[in-house]
């Protein structure tokens, strides 16, 4: 209890700290630039109760988020990081141009800061704008290691914009909180756990499909081997703005006058979430977007915008009336949760919450886009720059509330116009094509233009995320030369959107604005979109290029751009060894296991897997010799992009005592003698995932016997009921029903041809 109170106080203190920091920022105009700005950061384990339960978090200087760091262009930053954790850590300065050794990526630009050690990051501030910083070690970012990093323009800067750069500004950092350990979240995602869907109410089971009149949609979906569709992967207990779910800012600082009516405020928004895209909307009218990823853009008025993971946007909002606080609302893309910041004092004017997604409409859309081989069909539509949002079919505020099927619709061909949100409604949604830089951004003349193409790839079933179907551990660094221009064409062939982030550089995104293409360092790319970005290679080093969804990055959706003949990094002399470490970090082995303690025996499995390899064992143990014991162990490798095929080798062992004296032998359907009672055999075969997600297994045993088997697990009957079956040529069969009570516990009943009928408790990890 006492800890909880302390944390609450800390959060309140943070609120004040936040206000003071913004106060500092407004004063710092007067201080002459070129100074050294010094910060001390103490990284320490902490407990928080954001999600209603006390859980481990990481606080810096006692705060979540980390303190806002403010500099002016021309300053020198000196940031002393004290690691008081029991594990290594690092800090990455997101979006900054700085010497490679200060970039803060462990095993790429430095070694992790060891426990109880201190590191000093020191670099010149060569740009202005809204940026942020976060840990680049493991999954620490999810635990609270994110903070705003505000770089101010000098007054005399010709790019200084009156009415934009000189109005009150508030740093806003968005994030999310889960009560689960991030490592466990990561593991559950790889094991295709549907616990998050249950928590979110998005199981999309057969019962729900039938109720919604979408039975056929669901069948088609499973026929095409897709799991329930969703726009995000993880269930979060709470969303946070500046570390709080709901908060109010009445004045720039506690001592300054409260916001007046008509006053304009600049929000410097960073998305510090590990995997959440946020919709941003405001109760006091339109928002004016003035910068993106720290780079100025021509002001543009919008009703709402989506901010990708790790992107930053600067928006100006106004306070229309006296004695009213206006809600700034951040809603997760899945619309399950939201967080509010009230600007102003007095009665709180709310803004309309985003209505629930129409998931089955989304599923129908996915069915239409998905080919049988798992690739996507864009139906001849040219998609890029977030202009067409396929998910628009799920947005009730754009495409109307859920209604019964309209017969006339079926024959209609989908066209581009059906997905252009801004043309379907009065609501103006920002997209990349609307961003225009304030000055020309054309690249300097270079001797060479290097063009690279990447297809973003991945599959949801095994949660593998990659580029060109290769994870970081399967590729070398990409070599580039200093001075050359690099053009990257990205196509997203996966089913999720990805915020691709490049370290150390801003790239131009070719969006039809010609010389005024906006500069960014994060590109959100939606499924089936193709986008082109380009940058001048002007800063030597090893730079990470990766998906900023934390769990995608940890799954290996990364590349490294490495300058040829670069100087030795004093923090990391042995780069070869370090790169191996980096590769290993993003291809970790995941463990899962389950066992059914039933009246007729134990039934279970355990599995170790990484991106390509799988070692699994299944067992059925009776309680008596006559009921028998058996295990099957397989070691295999998943092939192909969708990983629907896995050849394996293995070992089978069985023992069963016969009742009575007659030694009665069984035959399989091919008339072969079956060694069901006493078997110790090596085996080779394959698993193939068929339509309807049925797994076909074929294997040959060392004695020449063979066996074919069909199996389907986890048929979603209702929100929490799963069914499964198995049948094989050894005349064995099984049928089961499982009710999921909690994350790790279920009740299971099954009938097994060998062991008969059983009821039991199913535990899984």
């Amino acid at each position, binding site marked *: 209890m006492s800890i909880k109170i302390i944390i609450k106080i800390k959060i309140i203190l943070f609120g004040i700290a936040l206000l003071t920091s913004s106060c500092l920022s407004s004063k710092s105009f007067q201080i002459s630039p070129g100074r050294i700005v010094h910060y001390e950061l103490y990284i320490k384990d902490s407990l928080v109760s954001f999600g209603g339960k006390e859980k481990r978090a990481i606080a810096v200087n006692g705060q979540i988020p980390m303190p806002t760091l403010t500099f002016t262009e021309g300053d020198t930053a000196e940031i002393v990081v004290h690691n008081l954790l029991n594990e290594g850590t690092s800090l990455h300065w997101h979006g900054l141009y700085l010497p490679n050794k200060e970039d803060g990526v462990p095993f790429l630009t430095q070694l992790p800061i060891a426990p109880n050690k201190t590191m000093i990051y020191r670099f010149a501030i060569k740009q202005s704008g809204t940026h942020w910083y976060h840990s680049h070690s493991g999954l620490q970012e999810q635990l609270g290691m994110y903070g705003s990093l505000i770089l101010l323009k000098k007054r005399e800067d010709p790019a200084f914009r009156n009415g934009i750069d000189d109005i009150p500004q508030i740093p806003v950092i968005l994030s999310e909180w889960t009560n689960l350990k991030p490592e466990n979240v990561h593991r559950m995602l790889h094991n295709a756990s549907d616990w998050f869907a249950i928590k979110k109410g998005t199981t999309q089971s057969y019962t729900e499909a039938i109720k919604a009149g979408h039975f056929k949609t669901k069948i088609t979906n499973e026929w095409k081997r897709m799991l329930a569709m969703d726009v995000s992967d993880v269930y979060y207990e709470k969303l946070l703005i500046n570390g709080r779910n709901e908060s109010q800012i009445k004045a720039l600082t506690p001592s300054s006058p409260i916001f007046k009516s008509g006053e304009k405020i600049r929000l410097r928004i960073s998305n510090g979430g590990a995997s959440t895209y946020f919709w941003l909307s405001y109760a006091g009218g339109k928002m004016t977007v003035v910068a993106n990823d720290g780079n100025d853009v021509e002001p543009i008025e919008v009703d709402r915008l989506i901010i990708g993971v790790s992107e930053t946007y600067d928006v100006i909002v106004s306070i*229309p009336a006296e004695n009213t606080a206006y809600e700034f609302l951040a809603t997760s893309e899945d619309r399950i949760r939201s967080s509010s910041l009230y600007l102003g004092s007095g009665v709180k004017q709310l803004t309309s919450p985003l209505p629930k997604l129409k998931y089955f409409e989304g599923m129908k859309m996915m069915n239409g886009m998905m080919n049988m081989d798992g690739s996507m069909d864009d139906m001849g539509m040219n998609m890029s720059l977030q202009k067409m949002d396929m998910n628009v079919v799920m947005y009730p505020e*754009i495409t109307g509330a859920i209604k019964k099927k309209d017969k006339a619709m079926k024959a*209609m061909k989908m066209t581009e116009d059906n997905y252009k949100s801004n043309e379907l409604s009065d609501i103006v949604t920002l997209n990349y094509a609307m961003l225009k830089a304030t000055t020309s951004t054309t690249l300097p003349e270079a001797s060479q233009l290097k063009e690279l193409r990447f297809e973003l790839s991945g599959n949801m079933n095994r949660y593998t995320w990659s580029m060109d179907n290769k994870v970081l551990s399967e590729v070398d660094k990409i070599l580039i030369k200093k001075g050359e221009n690099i053009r990257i064409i990205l196509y997203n062939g996966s089913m999720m959107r990805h915020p691709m982030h490049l370290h150390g550089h801003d790239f131009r995104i070719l969006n039809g604005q010609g010389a005024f293409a906006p500069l960014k360092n994060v590109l959100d790319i939606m499924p089936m979109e193709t986008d082109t970005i380009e940058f001048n290679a002007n800063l030597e080093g090893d730079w990470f290029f990766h998906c900023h969804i934390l769990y995608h990055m940890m799954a290996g959706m990364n590349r490294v751009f490495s300058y040829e003949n670069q100087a030795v990094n004093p923090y990391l002399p042995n780069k070869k060894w370090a790169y191996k470490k980096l590769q290993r970090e993003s291809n970790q082995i995941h463990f899962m296991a389950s066992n059914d303690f039933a009246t007729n025996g134990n039934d279970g499995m355990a599995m170790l897997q990484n991106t390509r390899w799988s070692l699994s064992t299944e067992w059925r143990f009776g309680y008596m010799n006559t009921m028998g014991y058996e295990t099957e162990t397989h070691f295999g490798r998943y092939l192909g992009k969708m990983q629907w095929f896995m050849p394996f080798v293995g070992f089978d062992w069985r023992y069963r005592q016969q009742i009575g004296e007659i030694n009665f032998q069984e035959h399989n359907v091919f008339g072969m003698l079956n060694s069901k009672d006493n078997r110790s055999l090596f085996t080779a075969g394959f698993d193939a995932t068929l339509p309807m997600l049925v797994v076909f297994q074929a294997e040959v045993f060392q004695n020449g016997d063979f066996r074919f088997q069909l199996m389907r697990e986890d048929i979603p009957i209702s929100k929490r009921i799963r069914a499964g079956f198995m049948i094989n040529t050894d005349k064995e069969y099984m049928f089961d029903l499982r009710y999921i009570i909690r994350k790790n516990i279920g009740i299971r009943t099954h009938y097994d041809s060998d062991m008969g009928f059983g009821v039991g408790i199913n535990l899984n990890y």
Partner: protein
Amino acid sequence: MKKITSKILIALTIMLSITACNAQIKNAKTDTIKIYGNCGMCKKAIEKAGNVKKVSLVEWNIDTKMATLTFDTKQTNSAEILKRIALAGYDSDSFLSPDLAYSNLPNCCQYDRTKKTIAKTEAPKMKMDTANQAIQKSSLEIEESNQLNNIFDKYFEVKDALVKTDGALASAKSTALLSAIKAVKMDKLSMDVHLVWMKVLTDLQEDAEHMANTKDASHQREHFIRLSDNIYTLMKVAKYEQSVYYQHCPMANDGKGANWLSKENAIKNPYFGAQMLTCGKTVETIK
């Protein structure tokens, strides 16, 4: 003996029911707060939005507009409850409902939004005044055409609502259309317009009324077919301030086809909305 047991039983049931009542909300705290609303329907909606089983209980009094909030202090607070109620459309002194939620309330529930108007009226009021002056200055002629222009404007708003498949909005806009129809002073219409007006009036009223009385977009669309035809007839004689496009979708009206009017040439189909937004073509441009 029997009596005693029955008495004990009664006592037990009473005790149990009392504890059951108490067990409903633990760590209970009660606040009395004003919530704006009008009628019995409001009461239902307010209480439904505020109540969470075993966590919070709201009772709203129609006469005093005061709500009694009882809640578990360990699980929630009055601000959370009031926010939920505001999101359902009902203002309090701590939260103002989103405009959309308020406008979606049934007509009888659309209470006067005092707070909001105090805060916001100044600027619009000024505009209204100048607009009124302008109208007063304007000649009779303009007023005449304005009469029907108002109807056309409202028609386009109804159409836009149907493009969005927003039944509630279409209903509200139809109500406005209906009052615009009723406000027409026939004696001020020119001769030829008057004749057409007399012909279409009954149907116009009937269709607008039907559309106002339902929030079901598919029912509204049925009436929108004839409504559009009549507005077209009217516009042919009365003229509108800008070019209007008469558009046709062959798939609407169960494949029999239907028409509508639009201020822009680009097709935005009011009969299908987003499902088939671009079905149709312009068949005539009314200048």
